[in-house]
């Protein structure tokens, strides 16, 4: 295990600093909790380890999310206990439902704040399950847990803010530059051809989403962090638009015949060179020249459209570069787009939720049947693992590394808790006994590849040693707890393994349906904010499709193409509506008729034999557009209508080929 050895015995400076910070925060929390005589000081220590993150903003964000979730969970636990104290089964069923609901919500809310929902779910289990035999003390228990957890959060935040503070917003600038660079590269690759662009697209989408999710952390890092967080919003949107326009240039390129393509090839090469070596002024100069060329070629429609779109591409490349500068300088522009919308899948969330609820109920049945005193500990762990990792693709694997962490913690905790600590008595020696194993654990936590195991090791070590002011040492309860832990996590892993909710075909169908309904809404949605709304949701979907891409057999990979076709349609639709809005021609009734027809066709969905459905509507609309006095915007609108028709045809033919295969 070279990674583990490397992480533990040859750590880099950042890992060492992180371990010292975490240990200091935890030690402070433990000391205060012991000093104030809180009921279970181990909770304060554990919380300090749970919220420990390498960057300050992340710690604060996670701490706040945890605090919020804990508060809600505490209130719910008191409520449940007040209502169902006499009827254990009803109590357990309600708890399972609540857990399922929280898991579902956290799956739907795919941001760092989802953690609050996870917490709201399992805090109820943490507080209410041990108190079920003495329901009258639930309020004291709730207050105690809440105090301990808050103490842990405060101490961890202090430690991370005071000792070698590492700020998210600084890394954000670096990540933003990388995203910008690979965005321009992908755009250039897309101009060159489909295959090259497709590979890059998944990567860049992942990067954009990752950078965008960091915004929430940077928000907590002073005014500069907030400005950067806002600027990032602009950058993500600009990059998504850039990628879509690159695809639209490529689409237009395909309409050119050989002579026209040869004619425009120098322009394309020049643009690709400019994107490879971006510089705002050069881009702007090139943009002017391309636009002039486009105006000169007004008579040859395909060439004109192609050059006009290239101009748009260069415009957006300049805008993206400016957005990057805004991020780097920490000055948010005044006209900010909305934040990226995400694709929400309610049924999937509910399925994840019911899996958690089922696993909990299975474990609870075991508890009720055996009346085993240590079982609530395991039950809590089932809740934790099920709700924390519900939406992860590799939930079972993470659960297994969780299990590995417990197995590592067992002998160490036995040595420290049952053999060493009984002979020692002082806070300093307690710190020595617990600090050394936890230090190595924290070193492991700093390495993302063994992070899950190391975190689980630290947490269970703390639970098993469970420092108190009046320590009681008992091998029997140690063994019982250990068994319960293994069973609890085992049950969660079993639930992940047995109820596998990843059927790529089903996912693909659902994502296509969602794309379709978005397209329908795009025909009538307000244009303001439509770009970020559609772009963000499509990016999210394409990423989800891409995750299953490698798991699919060759002929099923078209689902990803499905997503791309949907993206192209939406892009052309947006382009058309934007052109019409700019042209301001008196076309209201014709336009409405066309859009209604389009909406109708989109609502029925693409399919074999449906490729001609847009033809008559397009022809009528184009004729109406041509009757108007000529203007640039209207000319481009005609191009967009033609492209819409072609994209639709391509999407339908694609499905036809598939049916032919099947």
């Amino acid at each position, binding site marked *: 295990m070279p990674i583990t050895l490397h992480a533990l015995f040859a750590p880099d400076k950042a890992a060492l600093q992180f371990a010292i910070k975490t240990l200091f925060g935890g030690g402070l929390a433990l000391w205060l909790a012991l000093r104030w005589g809180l009921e279970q000081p181990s909770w304060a220590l554990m919380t300090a380890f749970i919220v420990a993150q390498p960057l300050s903003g992340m710690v604060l964000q996670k701490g706040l999310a945890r605090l919020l979730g804990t508060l809600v969970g505490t209130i719910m636990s008191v409520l449940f206990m007040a209502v169902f104290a006499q009827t254990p089964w009803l109590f357990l069923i309600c708890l399972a439902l609540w857990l399922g609901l929280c898991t579902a919500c956290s799956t739907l809310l795919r941001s760092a704040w989802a953690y609050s929902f996870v917490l709201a779910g399992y805090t109820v289990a943490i507080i209410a399950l041990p108190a079920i035999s003495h329901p009258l003390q639930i309020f004291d228990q709730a207050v105690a847990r809440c105090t301990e957890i808050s103490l842990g959060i405060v101490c961890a935040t202090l430690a991370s803010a005071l000792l070698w503070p590492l700020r998210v917003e600084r890394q954000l600038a670096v990540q933003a530059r990388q995203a910008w660079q690979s965005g321009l590269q992908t755009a250039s690759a897309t101009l060159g051809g489909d295959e090259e662009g497709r590979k890059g697209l998944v990567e860049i989408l992942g990067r954009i989403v990752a950078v965008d999710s960091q915004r929430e952390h940077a928000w907590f890092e002073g005014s500069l962090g907030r400005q950067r967080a806002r600027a990032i919003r602009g950058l993500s949107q600009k990059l998504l638009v850039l990628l879509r326009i690159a695809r639209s240039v490529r689409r237009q390129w395909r309409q050119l015949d050989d002579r026209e393509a040869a004619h425009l090839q120098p322009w394309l090469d020049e643009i690709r060179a400019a994107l490879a070596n971006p510089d705002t002024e050069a881009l702007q100069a090139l943009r002017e020249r391309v636009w002039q060329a486009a105006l000169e070629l007004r008579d040859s429609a395909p060439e004109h459209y192609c050059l006009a779109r290239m101009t748009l591409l260069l415009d957006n490349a300049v805008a993206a570069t400016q957005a990057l500068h805004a991020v780097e300088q920490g000055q948010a522009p005044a006209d900010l787009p909305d934040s990226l919308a995400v694709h929400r899948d309610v049924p999937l969330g509910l399925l994840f939720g019911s899996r958690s609820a089922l696993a909990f109920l299975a474990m609870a049945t075991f508890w009720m049947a055996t009346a085993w005193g240590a079982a609530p500990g395991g039950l809590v762990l089932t809740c934790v693992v099920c709700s924390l990792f519900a939406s992860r693709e590799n939930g079972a694997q993470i659960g297994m590394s969780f299990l590995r962490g417990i197995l590592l913690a067992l002998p160490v905790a036995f040595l420290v808790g049952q053999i060493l600590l009984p002979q020692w008595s002082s806070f300093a020696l307690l710190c020595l006994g617990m600090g050394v194993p936890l230090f190595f654990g924290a070193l492991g936590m700093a390495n993302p590849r063994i992070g899950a195991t190391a975190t689980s090791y630290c947490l269970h070590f703390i639970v098993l040693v469970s420092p108190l002011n009046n320590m009681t040492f008992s*091998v029997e309860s140690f*063994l019982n707890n250990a068994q319960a832990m293994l069973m609890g996590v085992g049950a969660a892993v079993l639930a992940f393994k047995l109820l*596998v909710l990843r059927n790529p075909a089903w996912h693909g169908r659902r994502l296509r349906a969602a794309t379709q309904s978005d397209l329908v809404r795009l025909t009538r949605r307000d244009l303001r904010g439509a770009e970020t709304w559609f772009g963000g949701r499509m990016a999210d979907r394409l990423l989800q499709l891409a995750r299953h891409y490698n798991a699919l057999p060759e002929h099923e990979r078209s689902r990803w193409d499905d997503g791309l076709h949907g993206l192209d349609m939406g892009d052309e639709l947006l382009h058309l509506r934007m052109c019409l809005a700019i042209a301001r021609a008196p076309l209201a009734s014709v336009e409405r008729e066309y859009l209604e027809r389009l909406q109708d066709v989109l609502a029925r969905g693409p399919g074999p034999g449906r490729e001609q459905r847009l033809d008559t509507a397009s022809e009528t609309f184009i004729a109406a557009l041509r009757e108007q006095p000529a203007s640039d915007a209207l000319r481009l609108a005609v191009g967009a209508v033609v492209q819409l028709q072609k994209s639709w045809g391509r999407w339908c033919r694609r499905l036809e080929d598939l049916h032919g295969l099947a």
Partner: protein
Amino acid sequence: MGLREWALGGVLLSPFLLYVVLALLLTGLLRFILRLTPLRRWIWHEALFDCALFVCVLTLVTLYL
């Protein structure tokens, strides 16, 4: 042999725990054998099969050991 606690250095262990460990080993062995034979092609849901196999083995172990 009935269900009787096992004494290990003064710590009493539940016999069921030992049965579970034994059944786990036996199931692992059976799975290994199954993996070598063409029988494994007939398994639809591996995790479900393993789980069911474990329950069967555990029952047999508890009843007949």
